[in-house]
């Protein structure tokens, strides 16, 4: 009975001192709210950018041909470099390390049809290894194989979006059907899904590079060579890239340092760069987060001290009516703990609510996706603030409870 009574006493004081309650609670609610929004935004940013790296092995290297930008051996600047099958073979045979390697040809969007259904899809001729390099998931059938290459087979592996737009109604089975690509019939041998969040990647058609060169090009030109570096360390991967570059510069007579003649994209390096960037951002967020919490602690402490000061007279009155020091201390402390807990909870709910709202209403952009705070951290922070409020209230409450009633009563 006594305990319920105590809660009622606290409830009535809290209810009748709304401003004081608000001020005490606000710094806690605000601190927790800010912390959650901060942590959540950080996570959203990181998730968003991580998405960018989805689809394609993280140890992939893509080498594309470009135009020279440095004078070399009397040859003029701006000379286009054209890779051929010879380059692919040279890298494959002389550079050790890559576990998968493929050449690619860029044929752009092509008209593709199946019966009465038409669509324009990106045609991507490549070697069988490209399936590994791109980490494609086969939904049906298989990816290209070596026999497709050596026998110039007219086979196609289509993306799931290609399948869904060409094969509709009664004809939902794509496997074994013939699609017409730029007027040439190709047999569908597989359907894939790309892990990239980019929709365009699902609208691709992979065909054997040998077939493409013969049917659509009549040359042995290629546009890109890509490989994965297996389990190699960053240094070993750099060595593979360096060797490839040296080989290409020798075969095409351009300066080794000419970054425009060949364009090399080392995904691993990019991933590493972003990892360290995000380590930095996370550290930054933590510093600000801890700052916010410290500000909250200072705020709660200050207000608790003011509250106790403001209540000195009331404490004197209560003591004259028979309040023991402990009953005074516990009244103030329990009040502080209740207010800060509820405020912390409100901050928690509001913060999480805002993040949920943003996650729901804002379309995920390239740089922001699924903001979400670590709930346990938020709960810990709330507990920390509640404890801080209690500690901050404890000492002034003890002092106030210890003064002689006459002195407390004299307070105006």
């Amino acid at each position, binding site marked *: *009975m*006594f305990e*319920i*009574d105590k809660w*009622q*006493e606290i409830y*009535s*004081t809290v209810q*009748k*001192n709304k401003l004081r309650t608000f001020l005490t609670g606000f710094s806690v609610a605000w601190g927790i709210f800010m912390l959650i929004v901060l942590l959540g935004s950080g996570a959203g940013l990181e998730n968003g950018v991580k998405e960018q790296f989805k689809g394609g092995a993280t140890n992939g290297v893509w080498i594309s041909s470009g135009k020279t930008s440095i004078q070399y051996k009397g040859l003029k600047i701006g000379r286009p470099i054209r890779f051929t099958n010879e380059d692919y073979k040279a890298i494959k045979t002389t550079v050790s390390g890559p576990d998968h390697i493929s050449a690619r040809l860029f044929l752009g969007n092509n008209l593709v049809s199946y019966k009465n259904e038409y669509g324009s899809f990106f045609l991507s001729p490549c070697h069988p290894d490209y399936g590994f390099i791109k980490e494609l998931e086969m939904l049906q059938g298989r990816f290209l194989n070596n026999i497709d290459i050596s026998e110039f087979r007219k086979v196609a592996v289509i993306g799931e979006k290609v399948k869904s737009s060409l094969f509709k109604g009664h004809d939902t089975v794509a496997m074994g059907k013939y699609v017409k690509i730029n007027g040439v019939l190709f047999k569908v041998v597989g359907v894939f899904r790309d892990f990239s969040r980019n929709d365009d990647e699902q609208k691709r058609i992979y065909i054997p590079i040998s077939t493409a060169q013969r049917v659509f090009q009549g040359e042995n030109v290629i546009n890109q060579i890509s490989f994965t570096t297996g389990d190699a360390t960053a240094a070993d991967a750099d060595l593979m890239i360096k060797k490839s570059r040296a080989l290409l510069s020798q075969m095409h007579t351009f300066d080794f340092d000419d970054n425009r003649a060949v364009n090399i994209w080392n995904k691993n390096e990019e991933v590493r760069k972003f990892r360290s960037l995000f380590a930095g951002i996370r550290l930054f967020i933590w510093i600000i987060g801890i700052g916010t919490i410290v500000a909250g602690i200072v705020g709660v402490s200050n207000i608790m001290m003011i509250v106790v000061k403001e209540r000195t*007279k*009331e404490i*004197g*009155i*209560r*003591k*004259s*009516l*028979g*309040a*023991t*020091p*402990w*009953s005074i201390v516990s009244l103030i402390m329990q009040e502080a703990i209740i207010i800060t807990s509820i405020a912390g909870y409100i901050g928690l709910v509001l913060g999480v609510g805002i993040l949920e709202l943003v996650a729901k209403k804002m379309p995920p952009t390239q740089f922001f996706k699924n903001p979400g705070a670590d709930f346990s951290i938020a709960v810990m922070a709330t507990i920390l603030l509640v404890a801080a409020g209690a500690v901050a209230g404890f000492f002034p409450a003890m002092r106030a*409870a*210890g003064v*002689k*009633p*006459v002195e407390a*009563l004299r307070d105006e």
Partner: protein
Amino acid sequence: MIRIKQIHKSYVTGQNSLHVLKGIDLDIAAGEMVSIMGASGSGKSTLLNILGILDDYDSGEYHLNGLLVNRLSERKAAQLRNRMVGFVFQSFNLVSFKNAMENVALPLYYQNVPRKKRNLIAMEYLERMGLAEWAHHLPNELSGGQKQRVAIARALIGNPKVILADEPTGALDSKTSLEVMDLLQEINATGITLIIVTHEHDIALRTKKTIRITDGNITEIIMNN
């Protein structure tokens, strides 16, 4: 009821020490109604605060209802105040955010009386004071006389043996003062010991005994008839 012997009390502020009570001897029997008079600064409030265990004394002896009161722990003192003493102050000392009923009920909270029951009892006391319809008003919505009657109800509710009133009519007009005095006299008639500090002669005259304090000493005890 109250026996004090050679009570001394000094206030120490920094380097200075102000000797306020200089050996007070006083006996007040149960059920007595006594007034204390004296010039401003003579030590009346100081004495009353010691009697109410709101303050310590330096030397001497104080027995309240046969119990020696000397350097009690705050907890003990609080319990003694709660059971034995009721206070009425010049400035009322009501808790500003509690309504009249809750103010009156507060001493019972510290006696662990359940809320419903203590509010019920508080209502009875307010009725006795003629304040039933003001029960749910905050102190700042009450007149001085009403506030003092709430304070008296609060002093009474814990069934004290002694009521100590420090200038209870000091902030009231003469008509209201008389009403408050009537009330206090009624209370005394129920057997509760009453000690009133006052500056006003006609108030003092309504008590049975007037104690005059001059500069920290009792200089005169007058029996009023």
